[in-house]
């Protein structure tokens, strides 16, 4: 094991390297570029034997990854924001073709207006593509999630691609100490990719042909089944990973100080670590607050949310993106998960941190305090935009 002080992007590149990705197809976009630059330097220095295809667009990056994966190679790519949006068609292709590609995505706001800073709109807009989504809190989690995602995705009964998500600049360009596991230990944890079927002249098949209505739904159902099955696989693989490497991240949802909490904020990404600091401070002041970190958004941690709703009466969901028309995407999932149960905590939706607007400890403390005093359930101020200039719904 090597201890390195590296950025989230560097951690991503190391993840692809020690996972021994055989084909990488990628296209540069801010703030993802230093991932592929690092990979290029690994390759140029002979440290990493991989086929690095420097494609002419993100759309082609994903098309090449799908084809390489179906030819039997472990594949990796990285993107962000508009690059991810351009890939959209091929993201759906990747899951439909059952290719367990792993991709790093640096969460960046979409234009216009142009912004290169963090929010979650790019990945949330890919909710329905059939990819697993992991929102990371630290650079270590970025690296570890790549290794675990290959293991989870490549299981013959799963065969689903994964998106490892890190916040623009806050993780992508900020250095932290990261343990880079030894290659032998990684090889032992993650055997080579060996799909049951691949493009092979000795065993010729068509991959992705036309199906009539009598079969199409069956193909889609199998993806749905695998995605549901992935929930248990995620937990199992993380247990195995923890045994070998001594680290774990809470499976699908990472809880902090929720057991006796009066109010909990639910949030994804690096802001979770700010929230943990705020919770420690507020608890010293006698305020019982906690955190539910959305680690996996797909598959959605339905059981975890229902468990949480039995424990706490107030949940503030902080969305770093917005679905124009009604509400933030995480909040919508929470409402949906709770509807069939009898538990009705007060759920509020805060829209915050879009386009890199800082979610500071002060902002989080205000949201916690607001949740602690609120007794409103129902529709009044169900969705609040936090700290928007000139907006009446801004939190005072």
């Amino acid at each position, binding site marked *: 094991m090597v201890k390195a002080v590296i950025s989230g992007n560097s951690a991503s590149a190391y993840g692809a390297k020690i996972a021994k990705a*055989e*084909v990488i*197809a990628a296209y540069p976009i801010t703030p993802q570029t230093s991932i592929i630059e690092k990979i290029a330097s690994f390759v140029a220095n002979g440290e990493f034997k*991989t*086929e690095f*295809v*420097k*494609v*002419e*667009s993100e*759309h*082609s*990056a994903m*098309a*090449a*990854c*799908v*084809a*390489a*994966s*179906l*030819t*039997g*190679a472990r*594949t990796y790519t990285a993107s962000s924001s508009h690059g991810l949006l351009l890939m959209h*068609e*091929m993201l759906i*292709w990747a899951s439909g073709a059952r290719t367990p590609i792993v991709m790093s995505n640096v969460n960046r706001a979409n234009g216009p207006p142009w912004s290169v800073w963090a929010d979650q709109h790019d990945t949330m807009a890919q909710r329905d593509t059939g990819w697993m989504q992991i929102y990371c809190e630290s650079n270590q989690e970025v690296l570890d999630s790549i290794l675990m995602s290959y293991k989870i995705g490549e299981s013959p009964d799963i065969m689903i691609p994964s998106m490892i998500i890190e916040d623009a600049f806050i993780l992508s360009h900020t250095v932290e100490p990261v343990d880079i596991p030894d290659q032998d230990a990684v090889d032992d944890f993650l055997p080579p990719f060996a799909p049951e079927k691949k*493009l*092979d*002249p000795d*065993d*010729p*098949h*068509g*991959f*992705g*042909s*036309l*199906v*009539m209505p009598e*079969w199409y739904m069956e193909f889609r159902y199998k993806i749905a089944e695998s995605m549901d099955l992935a929930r248990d696989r995620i937990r199992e693989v993380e247990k195995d990973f923890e045994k070998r490497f001594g680290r774990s991240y809470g499976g699908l949802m990472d809880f902090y100080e929720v057991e006796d909490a009066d109010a909990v904020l639910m949030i994804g990404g690096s802001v979770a670590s700010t929230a943990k600091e705020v919770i420690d401070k507020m608890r010293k002041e006698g305020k019982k607050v906690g955190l539910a970190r959305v680690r996996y958004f797909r598959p959605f941690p339905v059981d975890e949310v229902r468990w949480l709703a039995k424990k706490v009466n107030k949940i503030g969901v902080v969305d770093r993106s917005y679905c124009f028309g009604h509400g933030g995407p995480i909040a919508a999932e929470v409402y949906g998960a709770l509807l069939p149960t009898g538990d009705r905590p007060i759920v509020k939706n805060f829209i915050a941190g879009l386009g890199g607007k800082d979610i500071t400890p002060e902002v989080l403390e205000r949201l916690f305090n607001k949740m602690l005093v609120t007794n409103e359930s129902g529709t009044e101020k169900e969705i609040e935009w936090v700290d928007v200039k000139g907006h009446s719904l801004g939190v005072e």
Partner: protein
Amino acid sequence: MAKLTIPEEELMYPGHVGCLGCGATLAMRYMLKALGQRTIISVPACCWAVMPGVFPLTCLKIPMLYTAFETTGASISGIRAALDAKGIDDITVVGWAGDGGTADIGIQALSGAVERGTDVMYVMYDNEAYMNTGVQRSSATPTGAWTTTTPVGSTKDWKKMPKKDMVEIMVAHKIPYTATMSIAYPEDMIKKLQKAQKIKGPKFIHIYAPCPTGWRMAPDKTVEIAKMATACGVFPLYEVENGVYTITRKPELKPVMPYLALQGRFRHLPQEELDGIQNEIDKKWNRLLKLEEFTKELDEMEGD
């Protein structure tokens, strides 16, 4: 009797679901005969995405990856990269796309793949419009043609622009091999494909494949029309190796009118438009003759 040069092995079985008289089925059959069984093919949205048959059936005896419309160049890049990663070098990787999938929506991925020097063969089977969606114009539709999106009408809205020249675009990429071929000349086709197969790097093949359905012609005229196209200079057969042009069939050009007259898609054209088409063909043919002469001369000079 002349020796048969067309391989006997069939890698395309009967049972495809193409239209009666489809030129693209002949193109696939001959191509697979030329390249053999150790071939992987990637096919985007086009007639050939449907023609192998509906799941779980296929009429092809080689592995085929169906891919999205604009991705053929990227898809074959991915297959080649995976084979390279595994040290497999005896498989020919083929991208097989229509004219719309190549000259329009797929041109970026194709340009990228050949610019990267990818060791693949890219085949554009050209039926001169979006035929799978029901005859809409593409940039490879010839001047004067009726399609459902150039429907003539009272404003004489037929295709006004010239056909996009994919061979010239590929030659400009400085790839090692580019060739045109026609389903009417299978020996020429197989010879060129087998030559291309031995060349490392990107190869671009333009196959002329008549479409009776879209060209409004009798389905028993497919081969005849294709022969006429080469005889009148509409579709010359030539190859370009490292920038050097060689015309592989050099007929005394016949007039274009009988070729146009067999196809309903040109029925509306007035005499001056037909004269214009003849004029353009003559110019293109003369230019090709000069290109052959000039590039061969240049090559000899550079060789000295």
